[in-house]
């Protein structure tokens, strides 16, 4: 069952889809025409799916340079009358926030969805911000799906709400929803819309102060109608238990855990599950909570519903006790799960939890932090950087780094990530460190990240005469999120041939006089160029360009050109430079103390053969 089948107009057909794939199905069914994103986990597979099917489905899709641009692309489509979506990971909305806040004022014509994929527990993120706050901040409706089929239905519903109330609608998923797979049953496809037409209306679309003052008032006036929508939304529903002595209000992934735990242990709890969670259905909540002495609030991260429910309770003088974040089991930290929900309910219902941990010895397991892949060109660059800096005893070199696979340089033995804030921040930070200290500054940024937000900071560096080396680690793809194209490679979001934008020409165009391109696999050349860059006054840019090894591996496997390396034990002196300084995951020390290369993991890049001072690493015969 190929994902291409997701575009079929076969109502009733069922597929086992990822939440992110279900977004695309909902978009197709809802007659969506324009979609834009900047890839970011846990939202990435929405874009990957569109990349495969958009053309065939008659959708325009792009990987924009960053989330702000993506939001602007999708919003322009909306005000031209087309249904559109912009999607991103939670921190991406911070980038897009400037324009996003204004879209609530300008409103929409075609349905406009802003999808934010949050990351409780921070599986792939630098923070755990709860983007439901953004819906409250901007005063737009918020939908929180619980599973892939609900995502499909909610995308269509969001278009309707958006058009009816002329307002952007936010859909907020979390990692567990985006990366949940479940059965999705297809509905019919709406094929009405085609090309948009932008009818001018400066009073609506140009929020200069005199218009903005009126638009803000209109936005506030829209709230009442949206709240009525929430009151009757099919995504807010009550599940009664046999003997419902208690109430519980929940949303999103937590709703799944709560429903299962209540059913499994036959707990006397009635559940109000909220899918339309801003504005909250005030009457529905009022009428629900007044039935119980105690109502639990089961929501991940911030106590947003909880606080609103307490306000509703006070407003109507209801005596019900609300228990949400109890500071013990439920806190604003990390995602919930069925165990956490069970423990919370058992604690507050005074039920003894008789689950026992398995009786096994406490055996320490090896730590497996994510690591640069075998053959990764970044490893070669980091090896060279450390080698040159060791020569000069520059231990206090500052390494501002950025968001991408190369962030993994934080791991020993490289230790090449001293500070990270957000996309593009390595260059901004390098500006500051260059002014604030006399330490050498060597910053790293990826190719996609350079386009995303690195360029303005590089212009700043040149203009303000800062002094640092910037490595653009150009692996010709957006690797970490699953190999999406970007402006530096000649493919667009629909898989068509596209003009390529040159990183080195941008750097030269800014006026930087030291701009070199190296192949990181060529260790000697990389080290020579880096050495020169260190001595260069001002900003120097080194583009370390070599295709991501995962892409190369996939191609080589297909072509059947697969070699691996091994260690000639007769020549190996056990110096362990390949282990201690290069640290390829394919190289390991065997139980007999000998250094060996794992045949499964080795991808045959051969860089370790150049790292070895004794020529002991050879092609496996």
């Amino acid at each position, binding site marked *: 069952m190929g994902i291409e089948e997701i575009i079929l107009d076969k109502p009733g057909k069922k597929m086992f889809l990822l939440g992110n794939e279900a977004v695309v199905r909902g978009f197709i069914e809802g007659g969506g025409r324009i979609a834009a994103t900047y890839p970011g986990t846990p939202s990435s597979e929405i874009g990957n799916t569109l990349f495969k099917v958009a053309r065939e489905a008659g959708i325009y899709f792009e990987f924009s340079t960053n989330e702000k641009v993506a939001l602007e692309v999708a919003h322009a489509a909306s005000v031209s009358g087309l249904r559109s979506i912009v999607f991103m990971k939670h921190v991406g909305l911070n980038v897009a926030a400037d324009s996003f806040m204004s879209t609530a004022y300008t409103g929409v014509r075609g349905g406009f969805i802003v999808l934010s994929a949050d990351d409780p527990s921070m599986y792939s993120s630098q923070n755990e911000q709860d983007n439901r706050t953004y819906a409250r901040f901007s005063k737009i409706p918020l939908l929180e799906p619980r599973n892939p089929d609900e995502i499909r239905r909610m995308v269509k519903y969001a278009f309707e709400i958006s058009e009816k109330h002329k307002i952007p609608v936010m859909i907020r998923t979390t990692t567990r929803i985006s990366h949940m797979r479940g059965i999705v049953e297809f509905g019919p496809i709406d094929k009405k819309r085609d090309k948009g037409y932008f009818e001018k209306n400066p009073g609506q679309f140009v929020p200069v102060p005199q218009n903005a003052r009126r638009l803000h008032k209109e936005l506030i006036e829209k709230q009442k109608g949206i709240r009525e929508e929430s009151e009757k939304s099919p995504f807010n529903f009550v599940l009664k238990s046999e003997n419902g002595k208690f109430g519980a209000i929940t949303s999103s992934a937590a709703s799944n855990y709560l429903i299962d735990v209540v059913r499994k242990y036959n707990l006397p709890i009635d559940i109000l599950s909220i899918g339309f969670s801003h504005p909250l259905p005030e009457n529905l909540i009022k009428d629900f909570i007044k039935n119980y002495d105690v109502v639990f609030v089961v929501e991940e991260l911030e106590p947003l519903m909880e606080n609103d429910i307490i306000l509703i309770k006070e407003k109507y003088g209801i005596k019900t006790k609300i228990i949400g974040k109890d500071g013990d089991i439920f806190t604003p930290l990390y995602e919930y799960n069925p165990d956490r929900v069970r423990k919370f309910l058992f604690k507050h219902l005074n039920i003894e939890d008789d689950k026992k941990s*398995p009786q096994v010895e406490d055996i320490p397991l090896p730590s497996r932090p994510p690591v640069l892949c075998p053959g990764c060109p970044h490893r070669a660059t980091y090896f060279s950087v450390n080698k040159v800096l060791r020569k000069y005893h520059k231990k206090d070199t500052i390494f501002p780094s950025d968001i991408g696979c190369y962030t993994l340089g934080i791991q020993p033995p490289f230790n090449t990530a001293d500070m990270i804030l957000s996309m593009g921040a390595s260059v901004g930070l390098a500006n500051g460190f260059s002014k604030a200290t006399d330490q050498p500054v060597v910053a790293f940024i990826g190719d996609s990240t350079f386009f995303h937000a690195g360029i303005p900071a590089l212009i700043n560096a040149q203009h303000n005469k800062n002094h640092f080396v910037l490595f653009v680690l150009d692996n010709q793809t957006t690797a970490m999120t699953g190999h999406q194209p970007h402006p530096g490679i000649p493919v667009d979001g629909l898989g068509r041939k596209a003009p390529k934008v040159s990183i080195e020409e941008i750097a030269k165009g800014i006026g930087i006089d030291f701009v070199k391109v190296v192949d990181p696999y060529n260790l000697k050349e990389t080290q020579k160029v880096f050495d020169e860059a260190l001595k260069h006054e001002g900003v120097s840019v080194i583009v370390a360009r070599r295709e991501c090894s995962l892409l190369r591996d996939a191609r080589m496997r297909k072509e059947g050109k697969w070699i691996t390396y091994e260690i000639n034990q007769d020549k190996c002196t056990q110096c362990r430079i390949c282990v201690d300084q290069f640290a390829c995951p394919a190289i390991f020390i065997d139980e007999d103390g000998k250094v060996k290369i794992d045949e499964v993991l080795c991808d045959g890049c051969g860089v370790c053969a150049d790292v070895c001072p004794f020529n002991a690493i050879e092609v496996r015969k």
Partner: protein
Amino acid sequence: MRDAFNIVISGVGGQGILKLSKIIGESALFEGKNVVMSEVHGMAQRGGVVISEMRIGDVNSPLVEEGDADLIIALEPSEAFRVIGKTGGKTWFVINTEKVVPFTVSLGISSYPDVDKLIENIKRVSKNVVVFNGVELSKKAGSLISLNMVMLGAVSTLPIFPLKEDTLVKVMEESFKGDALKVNKLAFNFGKEEAKQRGG
């Protein structure tokens, strides 16, 4: 109360855990059963721990409660032990014994435990443990990356496993093409025979 058949699949990024989970899930769909699953994508895939949780039955949460796993499929021995908290008295294990040693061990910042000791501890909590070197079998099938289908073949023989072998094979046929299909079917059969010999 058993409300669903709960599967936990553990291993290391790159071992094909997502593909394995997806084939099981699509097989459940094919047999008209409800199935929900939670996957790991993104940063952890780069050599990190990968755990898929899957529940076949009328349930909402894709995450398996502590002690509730009916089946643990471990593509790596230490990763079998990492999910031991999901085990209760009824859990079956299918474990590949070939280690994937992370670089942290080579650098001396963590250690890899004795595999026999791991298995012995797992056998303390479960009577039903099928252990074999799946990597050897995948080599024999023609590709080291067919380990996931070796494991699936082994799982298909378990008396508790709720899906039919025919369904699994049919979904495999839809998921792989050409040489890859040949290799993976071979791997599946090797896994199946191995598990049968070991009393799966």
